[in-house]
């Protein structure tokens, strides 16, 4: 059976070049980077190289990159660390209603511990309003955390402008760039952010390794205490092979960036055109102007997303429902809700995310199957275009 993976925003396969770099560090070059002898020093050097590669992708200084175990840890660290560092200054945090759970749930946690959080809404295109952001600032505001690119509908936020507002008010600015890394140009100096979360497994690197960009001068308390690793900012024996893999993935991402963006955008636009012209009653969620190059979020009206997802899986097509009824979730996507998509339409929404190994043939095969499956599920459905919802 043909296999079509269209869930690159969920995770990506590790590229061969990346895995090849990692392999030696499991077996021969397995020294602990804290050790003084040669194979220890080799591991340390490998980390330094990877740090440079990740720094290079985002225009950071080498010492501004701290490896963590995942994007979620970076998000938790940024929020909880800032809360701790700045609690004498205030207890107010501003974020958006469309953040990833790693940010949202950490905010909920902080709310239980005396912090107040403002969740900015977004417009139809999925973007925040900068005057709303500025208006939300109080003299107790210690952190603004705004995701760079949304994982469900791909909206790209005005990070540079938002960071400038934060700076003007002397407030730390964090951005969750897990979906943005390798999918848009990022220059942290130009953006003016203080902290930025990243994760390797979204850019063809391994799972279980993330990083934090921590601008020089931002003194964030440690999150995992213990050994002196990562400039004493993150304890724990370094995940050397994963770090090496992250570095290589970052290097490749940098090399291919403009081509990657151009290619994905073209495929994305082609796919949207095909689906919306060949299948009736399909909505595109989120705006097209500021959008992740590989993100497609569609509502297939009158059918429920999970059933569509399963039937596509039977045809070898892997996609994701950000909506109800996923195995771990029955609650409709908070992101599409924030966009103003009615709940019943959220239940019929699916995310297709395109990546480096996606071909036009993959998309044609997907469209073909979608036509058939959507028609079938609509015959079964108790709602329809004639009768309405």
């Amino acid at each position, binding site marked *: 059976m043909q296999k079509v993976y269209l869930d690159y925003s*969920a995770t990506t396969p590790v590229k061969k070049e990346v895995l090849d770099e990692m392999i030696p560090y499991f077996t021969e070059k397995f020294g602990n980077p804290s050790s003084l002898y040669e194979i220890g020093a080799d591991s340390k050097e490998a980390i330094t190289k990877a740090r440079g590669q990740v720094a290079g992708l985002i225009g950071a200084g080498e010492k501004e990159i701290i490896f963590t175990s995942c994007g979620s840890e970076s998000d938790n660290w940024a929020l909880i660390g800032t809360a701790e560092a700045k609690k004498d200054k205030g207890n107010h945090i501003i974020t958006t209603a469309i953040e990833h759970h790693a940010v949202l749930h950490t905010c909920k946690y902080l709310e239980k511990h005396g912090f107040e959080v403002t969740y900015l809404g977004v417009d139809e295109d999925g973007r925040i309003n900068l005057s709303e952001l500025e208006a939300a600032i109080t003299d107790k505001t210690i952190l603004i955390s705004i995701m760079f690119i949304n994982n469900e509908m791909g909206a790209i936020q005005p990070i540079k402008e938002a960071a400038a507002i934060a700076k003007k008010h002397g407030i730390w600015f964090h951005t969750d760039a897990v979906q943005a890394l390798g999918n848009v140009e990022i220059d942290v100096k130009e953006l003016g952010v203080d902290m930025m979360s990243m994760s390797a497994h979204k850019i063809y690197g391994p799972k279980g390794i993330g990083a934090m960009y921590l601008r020089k001068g931002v003194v964030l308390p440690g999150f995992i205490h213990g050994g002196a690793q990562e400039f004493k900012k993150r304890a724990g024996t370094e995940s050397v092979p994963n770090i090496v893999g992250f570095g290589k993935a970052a290097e490749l991402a940098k090399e291919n960036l403009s081509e990657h963006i151009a290619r994905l955008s073209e495929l994305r636009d082609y796919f949207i055109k095909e689906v919306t012209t060949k299948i009736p009653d399909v909505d595109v969620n989120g705006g097209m102007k500021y959008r992740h190059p590989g993100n497609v979020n569609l509502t297939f009206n009158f059918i*429920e997303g999970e059933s569509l997802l399963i039937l596509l899986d039977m045809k070898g097509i892997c996609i994701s429902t950000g909506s109800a009824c996923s195995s771990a979730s029955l609650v409709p996507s908070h992101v599409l809700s924030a966009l103003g998509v009615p709940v019943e339409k959220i239940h019929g929404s699916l995310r297709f995310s395109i990546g480096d190994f996606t071909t036009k043939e993959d998309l044609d095969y997907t469209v073909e199957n979608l036509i058939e499956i959507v028609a079938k599920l609509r015959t079964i459905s108790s709602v329809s275009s004639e009768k309405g919802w």
Partner: protein
Amino acid sequence: MAMYNDKVMDLFMNPQNVGEIENADGVGTYGSPVCGDMMKMSLKIENNVIVDAKFKTFGCGSAIASSSMATEMIIGKTIDEALNITNKDVLKELGGLPGPKIHCSVLSEQAIKAAIYDYAQKHGLEFEGLKDYDPNASEDDHLHEHDEEDGE
């Protein structure tokens, strides 16, 4: 699809009794698109026996499979027998559903009751099995496990 067993998958892929009966004797819907699943059940009833049943369902795979199973289970049954069918019976026939999907079996139990209630109303009949039935109860009043967040 590792999350569903073969029986459920089979019914989902090849659901039985899909459709609407013309001039049905009883029609009931349960759930709503807002809740993510809505089942519409229509019945043909002769001499207190359900001789035909058809469904239309907006919902996930297990909602569709449950609906299909429920129609199969009631065809040939008397009304009283049909009213005795609980979501547990549907679940059992399906060979089980994943935890967060149990409510889908409730959907079909309630849709059966709604359709029979409609039939009872139209014919001025009363059934023991409808004694506690509240036609205005919403899905949320019944078992509907909410489970949050995804993991990507």
